[in-house]
């Protein structure tokens, strides 16, 4: 594989590089854990890689917590997410998803932005972010920011709304309104590490003291062309008290989540399995 490489060191250089390459073929590379595999499969032709690994920029590289939201730079590595105690305490779903991704070695280089822009239906971090209703902060060559809800950012397997003159700068997640949480990430695979999700389920519920569901997010991965936000289930849950979910309701919710999916057969699992397992793990949410 053969390609040119540009390594901007700061935001100005990045925007300049990006402008210069507008009429050419280029790709961003952050941790390269997806990109190199793709290049190996489909040899790049006359392509320049914009290497983001050396970019030093606060907004791209850090996790910040202010003005009612938490902002995560697109170049933040998965390992940083795993270590962040604020995230661990407030967004268990995100912490668990990051921890479930690949292996310790990969997490040291793989980035949040890479996981999102890869737009894989089985992306673990992306699935958690969809359940958290994250917002994508997209920078264009003029330095302007475009905001877009993450579930709209995804357009299909491997497809995002990103334009040629844009780059994903960061994402933001609204901070919790309640300390009373039920939040987690369930990943189904054949082995305990280095595994692509066969099915994933991300959930983040904020509860009132009495258990009434105040805010909710549920996302399912690897069971459709993109990660799916289970709107119908969420609407239903918002009327419920988490302490009153009985056997019948539990199964109803599991069915609703299952109905939101449209899995296919592939080398990793059959549609039948995905459908079945999704129902089962959805059931387990309220056990």
């Amino acid at each position: 594989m053969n390609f040119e490489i540009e390594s901007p060191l700061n935001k100005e250089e990045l925007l300049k590089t990006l402008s210069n390459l507008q009429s050419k073929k280029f790709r961003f590379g952050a941790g390269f854990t997806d990109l190199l595999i793709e290049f190996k499969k489909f040899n790049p032709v006359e392509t320049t890689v914009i290497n983001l690994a050396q970019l030093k920029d606060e907004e791209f590289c850090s996790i910040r917590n202010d003005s009612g939201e938490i902002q995560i730079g697109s170049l933040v590595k998965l390992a940083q997410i795993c270590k962040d105690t604020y995230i661990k305490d407030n967004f268990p779903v995100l912490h668990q998803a990051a921890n479930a991704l690949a292996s310790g070695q990969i997490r040291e280089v793989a980035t949040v932005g890479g996981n999102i822009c890869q737009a894989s239906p089985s992306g673990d971090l992306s699935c958690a972010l969809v359940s958290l209703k994250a917002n994508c902060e997209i920078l264009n060559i003029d330095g302007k920011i475009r905001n877009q809800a993450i579930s709209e950012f995804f357009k299909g397997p491997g497809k995002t709304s990103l334009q040629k003159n844009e780059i994903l700068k960061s994402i933001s997640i609204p901070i919790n309104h309640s300390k009373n949480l039920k939040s987690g990430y369930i990943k189904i695979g054949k082995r305990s590490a280095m595994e692509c999700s066969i099915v994933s389920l991300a959930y983040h519920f904020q509860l009132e003291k009495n258990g009434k569901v105040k805010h909710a997010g549920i996302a399912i991965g690897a069971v459709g062309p993109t990660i799916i936000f289970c709107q119908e289930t969420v609407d239903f849950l918002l009327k419920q008290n988490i302490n009153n979910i009985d056997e019948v309701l539990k199964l109803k919710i599991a069915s609703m989540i299952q109905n939101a999916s449209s899995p296919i057969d592939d080398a990793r699992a059959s549609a039948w399995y995905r459908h079945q397992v999704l129902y089962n793990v959805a059931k387990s949410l309220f056990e």
Partner: protein
Amino acid sequence: MDKKLKIIGKSTSKLDGNDRVSGRSVYGHDIELPNMLYAKILRSKYTCAKIKYIDCSKALALEGVEYILTAKNLDVNMIGYKRDHPILKGETVNCQRDEIAAVAATSREIAAKAVSLIKVEYEEIKGIYDPFEALKTEARKINLNGQGEEKFGNKNIAESFEYSHGELKSMKKLSKVIVSRRYQFPRVTHCCMGTSNITADYSIIDGKLTLYSSTQVPFLYQRDMAHALKMEPSKIRIIQPIIGGGFGSKLDMLPFEPICALLSIKTGKPVQLLYSREEEFIASPTRQAMVIDLTSGVDEKGKFTFREVQITMDNGAYTSWGATTPFVMMQAYSSLYQIAACKFQADAVYTNNPNAGSFRGYGNPQATFSIERNIDLMAEELGLGKDEIRLLNANFPGEITGQGLLFKTCGAKPALLKVIEESNYKMKNREKQSGRYRRGVGLASMLHVGGGAKIYRSDGCGTRLKLDHYGFLTIITGSSEIGQGSETVLAMIACEELGIPLTHIKVINSDTDVKPWDVGVHASRTSFVAGNSLLGAISIIKQKLNSKAAQLMGCKNSDFVYENGFIKACEKEVKIDKVVREMHFGNPNKLCVAEYFFEPTSSFQDKDFKGDVSGNYAFASQVAEVEVDTYTGKVNVINMYVSQDVGRVLNPMGLQGQIEGGLATGLGYALTEEMIYEDGYLTNPSFHEYKLLTAMDMPEVHFYPIETMDEAGPYGSKGAGEAPLIPTAAAIANAVSNALGVEFLSVPLTPEKVLKALSEKNNHKTANSQIL
């Protein structure tokens, strides 16, 4: 054997451990020779086709391309166990890995580019991928060089084995319970961390060929290579760089090896050929895929009566050593537990799948799986404890089996008792399970050769010793190290016997021009055979040292003690290096060297496969404790209890490594590993899709060695390398069945397979209750 041992039995780090972890070890991939060229192979586009023409002109025109080899104008012999495998294919292709052309170029990139420029026109033929289809009379003859018609009455049979003992008919009559099942096993592969590699260096000046190769059998390889290339064997020198994993995969010489040699011969330059990981999956050996039909019986008292088994192996397009796995499998069927009658038939059948090879365990994991699953089923039907039935039928010391294997020592029963007790099997096996997570325990045993296996005319190993003027010992052994730690064990033995510290011992084992003959590293034989050979050489060198030392110390016929670099006798001592110097510079003016060749007493089996094939036999039992998630079907192995008759523990740390490594392979075989083919094409040639388990999936391993002190082995030891993976899949399948009450007839037990079995069981139940 009661003398107190100083180092044998104490954990000793691998001699090459520091080099390995610090990156100093030189693997085949690290070799660089002056003017070296890089080779790449063009493989077939189709799994079954006629080749109409091959056009290399564009590739040849590429700058940096030095030679392109095709089947045209090649004067070579076919290779493989049955000599049915052309090195390069010129007329027909029979599987995905088939080699059509090979390029030697000045860089890897140019070689790859050149391969992409070679034009081949094919006429595709409908392939046969199912051995049962291949056996039908109307099937096409797959391997045109096969001799199945003449030898076995079917053109697509590559090899066939038949064995029997005892009175099958009357034993069937005696049986209270008879269980018949068909088991299916997929292809899996070794996943060596070092991909296949070779560097060939031919000298046009003297016609000698040096091969840097990771073969496990250098002397057979030398002979095979010479036959393939029509050369004199002695003109071929095999150097084995550090080998990045063998596990049986390097028992056969494969086409890429003579191809690389030929490119070096044609260009007169060194040529290197390295596989990519994808190529490794596609074109390195696999374990045999097979279908086993096993019927076994038990009488009303719980004594096993008979086993009748028919095995159909998917040989792939060409025949490797792997076709002889029935040789090992029949030992399991005839002799694992006491068996009054046994009838065994196995055919290796040509298909258009890639050719299988040999793999640690050599057929035994498949055989053991079927035997041990049937035992659980028979016990259930008879209402006898699954542990009791095994204990009742366990092999015993002094037993001569129906096949003629003589168990001079036998740890079968102690191993069973140990794992049953330690795992609390009895109690756990009876616990009724409900809820989402269900636990189960499964028990399985195995029998394997422990003292080599006479499958070649000699199963021996030579050793040369050289003690230098400074007290350093060089052990030149015929045996090979592929990571199993035998090198370290040899140094430990020399240290034990000669009192020379490990730091003063070198083991040379990597050059056929230097080392004496050995049949190769396989059959768990190296520590046994090379260890015995070394002990023989040590006893010769000791005689020489004793007599000189006696002279120097002025004492006779004493007990000589070798300790800390000294020889001690009659309350005097002399430094060992001084003795060596005095031998050289004084009378008898000789160097301190010795040579010994050890041939095990095992016998070549007769044409009915009867006879005592190994110097001793290894026995093992395992209990797997699993927790199955009934929501996802995922099997979590929590504990593995392993007890193995190793004769005697030589290096506890090395042994633990073999146990854990073997288990890892066995777990993968049981749960996740599977090469998935569509019409002969491998669909998952990467670690992403071929699910090798990771460290995160390892259970707690509880290991209990059984020491039976078998006098045939060094210090009483037996071969131990293959055993730990052999009963693992069987134990796990038994455990999952115990947890869920469903049966599994194939591996791997993937989450999907488990969930499907569960859902079928539940459907069945609801259907039944509706009827009620």
